[in-house]
C-alpha cells in the first residue's frame, strides 16, 4: 500500500497517473482482511517475530526429532559437562563439522571434576542419525534424530548437561512444550471467562455490570504473584503432571481474564449504540444472533490483539512459579523447572549454561510482544 496522492489534475505523465490510479483501485477494492495483512506486513518487528514464533512452536511439537536424546536419558560419565564445541576446520582447512570426546579429570587444586577435550580422535557430526526411538506426534514410532554422532561416538551436548548428566538441549526443547502451550491454554481459558463476563457486563449493563466491574477492580488491585504462589503451593504434591498443569493454568487465568473482559465490555458499550445493531434489531434478530453475528465479528480483531499481548504474562507466570518450585514439578519439564536448578549463585557460577532456558523465555516473550504490537497497528487499517 503506497502513499496515494489524491490530486489527479497534476501535470504528471499519464502513465504514472494510471499507475497511481491502479494502486488506489487496489486499495479501495481490497477486503478488510487484505488491508490488515498489508498493514501488518509493514511492521518489520512483527514480520520478523511471526516466522520465529512458528519455528519455536514447531521445535516444541517435534522436540523429540530436533533433540539428539530423550530428555530423561542420563549420561553417567558426563555429569555437568559444558556445551560441546563444534569444530568446522582442522589445521586451517574447512571440513565436515566434528567434535572431540570429553575426558573427565579431577582438578588437584579445587577437588572438582573438570572436562577437557580428548583430541586424539575426531567424531564427525551426522544428520538424520538413528538413536533412541520415540513416538512422533504421539503415535508414529521413529528413531531418527536431526543430528548426532555415529553410534559408538561420544554424545553431543550443544547446551551442556545438568548435574544428573541429562542433555540440556533435549530438555529445553522438551520443556518448550509445557512453557509454550501453557500460554495458549491459559489465554484460551481467560478468553472464555473474559468474553462471557465482559459480554454480560457490556451488553446488559446495570447492576450486573457494576458487580463485574467491582470484581475486576478487586482482582487488579491486589498483587498477583504472592497470591499465585499461595494458591499453587496449596495444590497437592501427589497430583499427576497433567492435573497440576491444568490447575496452574486455571490459577493463572483467574487473573488473566480481567483485561480481556475490559476490552470486550468497552467495545460492546461502544458498538451497541451503532446503527447496524438497531437495524438488526428492527429486522427481528434475536439478542443472541446480534451478539454472535454482528457484534462479535466487529471487535474480533481487537480481541486477537489483547489475546496475543496477554500470552507473555501467562508464560512468565508459569516460569516464575515453576522456578520457585511452586508450579510444575519434576518429572514435568518446563523452562521454569529447568531454571529451578539455576537458583543458587554457586550453581550458576559453575555451570552458567543452565541459564540457557532463561534466554528462551525472554526471546519468546519479546516475540509475542512484537507480534502483538504489529497486530495492534494492523487491526485498524484505516488509521494512518
Amino acid at each position, binding site marked *: 500500500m503506497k502513499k496515494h496522492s489524491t490530486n489527479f489534475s497534476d501535470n504528471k505523465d499519464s502513465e504514472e497517473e494510471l499507475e497511481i490510479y491502479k494502486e488506489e483501485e487496489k486499495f479501495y477494492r481490497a477486503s478488510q482482511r487484505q488491508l490488515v495483512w498489508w498493514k501488518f506486513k509493514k511492521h518489520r518487528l512483527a514480520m520478523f517475530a511471526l516466522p520465529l514464533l512458528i519455528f519455536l512452536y514447531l521445535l516444541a511439537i517435534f522436540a523429540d526429532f530436533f533433540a539428539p536424546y530423550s530428555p530423561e536419558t542420563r549420561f553417567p560419565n558426563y555429569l555437568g559437562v559444558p556445551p560441546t564445541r563444534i569444530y568446522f576446520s582442522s589445521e586451517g582447512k574447512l571440513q565436515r563439522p566434528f567434535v572431540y570426546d570429553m575426558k573427565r579429570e579431577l582438578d588437584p587444586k579445587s577437588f572438582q571434576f573438570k572436562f577437557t577435550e580428548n583430541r586424539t580422535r575426531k567424531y564427525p557430526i551426522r544428520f538424520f542419525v538413528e538413536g533412541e526411538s520415540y513416538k512422533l506426534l504421539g503415535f508414529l514410532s521413529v528413531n531418527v534424530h536431526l543430528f548426532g554422532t555415529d553410534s559408538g561416538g561420544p554424545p553431543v551436548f550443544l547446551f551442556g548437561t545438568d548435574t544428573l548428566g541429562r542433555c540440556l538441549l533435549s530438555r529445553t526443547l522438551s520443556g518448550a512444550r509445557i512453557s509454550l502451550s501453557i500460554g495458549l491454554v491459559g489465554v484460551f481459558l481467560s478468553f472464555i471467562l473474559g468474553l462471557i463476563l465482559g459480554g454480560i457486563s457490556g451488553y446488559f449493563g446495570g447492576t450486573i455490570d457494576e458487580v463485574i466491574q467491582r470484581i475486576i477492580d478487586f482482582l*487488579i*488491585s491486589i498483587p498477583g504473584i504472592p497470591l499465585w504462589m499461595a494458591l499453587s503451593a496449596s495444590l497437592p504434591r501427589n497430583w499427576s503432571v497433567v492435573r497440576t498443569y491444568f490447575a496452574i493454568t486455571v490459577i493463572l487465568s483467574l487473573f488473566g481474564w480481567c483485561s480481556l473482559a475490559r476490552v470486550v465490555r468497552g467495545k460492546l458499550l461502544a458498538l451497541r449504540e451503532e446503527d447496524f445493531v438497531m437495524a438488526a434489531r428492527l429486522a427481528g434478530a434475536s439478542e443472541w444472533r446480534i451478539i454472535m453475528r454482528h457484534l462479535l465479528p466487529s471487535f474480533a480483531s481487537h480481541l486477537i490483539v489483547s489475546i496475543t499481548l496477554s500470552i507473555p504474562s501467562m508464560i512468565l507466570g508459569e516460569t*516464575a512459579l515453576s522456578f520457585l518450585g511452586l508450579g510444575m514439578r519434576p518429572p514435568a519439564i518446563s523452562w521454569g523447572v529447568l531454571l529451578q536448578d539455576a537458583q543458587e549463585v554457586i550453581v550458576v557460577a559453575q555451570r552458567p549454561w543452565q541459564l540457557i532456558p532463561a534466554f528462551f523465555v525472554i526471546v519468546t516473550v519479546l516475540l509475542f510482544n512484537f507480534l502483538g504490537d504489529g497486530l495492534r497497528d494492523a487491526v485498524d487499517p484505516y488509521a494512518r
Partner: protein
Amino acid sequence: MLFYIIRRIITVIPLLFVLSLVSFIIIQLPPGSFLDTYISTLKLSGTEVSDAEIARLIKLYDLDKPMYVQYFTWIKNIVLHGDLGRSFQWNRPVKQLIGDRIGLTMLISILTILFTWIIAVPIGIYSALHQYSLFDYFFTFLGFIGLALPGFLVALIVVWIAFSSFGISVTGLFSPNFVNAPWTLAKVVDMLKHIWVPMIIIGISGTAGLIRTIRANLLDELRKQYVITARAKGLPERRLIFKYPVRIAINPLVSTIGWMLPGVIGGEVIVSIVLNIPTTGPLLYGALQSQDMYLAGSFILILSTLTVIGTLISDILLAWVDPRIRYGGVGG
C-alpha cells in the same frame, strides 16, 4: 474534595473484607487443620504438646467451632489485638516475624517507584521532543526489552555476571557484619549500598512502561491547539513546553501508582527470593513451602491491604491534582 475522599474510603471497605476472606481461605486450603500440623511439627522436633496448651489454642482460635465463627475470631483477633496467629514453623507469633520485613518491602517498593519516576520522566520527555531520533529509537527498543524481561530472570543473570566477572556477591541487603546488628546509622548506610540492586531490577519493567506512557501523552499534547497558539504568540520554546504540555503529560506519575504498586510488590517478593533479601519474599516462600499457613495468609493479607491503601492514596492525590476527577465522580 472531602466528600470525594470519604466516598473513596467507603469503597475500600468491601474490598478489604473480600481480601480478608481470600486470605482466610488460603489459610484453610491445605488439608488437615492448623492444629494437627502444629502438633505434628512440634512432635517432630521432639517437643510434646500438653493437653492444656492444645485446649488453650482451640479456645483462642475457636477451632472447634464452624468455619464462619473461626473467620470472625480470626479477624477479631487481628483488628482488636493485632494477633495474626502463630507460625508453627518458627513457633512464634506471626506478628513478631513480619514487622521488620513488611517495612523493608515497603521501603524497597517506594524507592523503586521513585527510581522509576526519576529515570522515566526525563527520558520520556526527551523521546517525545525528539521523536524518531536515534535516542528515541534506542529507548523505544530498550523499552520493549524492559517490558519483556521478568525481574527474577534479570536478578538471576545480574547475580551470575557480578559473581563470575567481578567476583562480588550482590545478594542480601546487608554486609555480613551488619546482618544481626541493631539499627544504627552505619547499618542504614550499609543497606543503602546494597538496596540499589533490587531497586533497579524491580524497576525495569515499570520504567519501560512509564517511558512509553509519558512519550505518548506528551506527543498528544504537543499537537494540540493551545501549543500552537502559545508558539504563535512567541513564547520561548523551553518555557512553553515545560509550563503546559509536560505538566499534563506527567499526570500518569500519580495515576499509574494504582496499577504499578501491585506489580512492584509482586516483583519485589520474587526478586527478593532470588537475591535473598530479608523482606517478605523469602519468608512467604518458606512459609508456603512448609505450608505454614497462618504466616503465609497474614503476608497475603498485609501485602494486599497495603497495596489497596497505596492505590487509595494515589487516587486521592490524583483528585487533588486533577479537579476533573474530583467533580466527575468515582466512576468518571
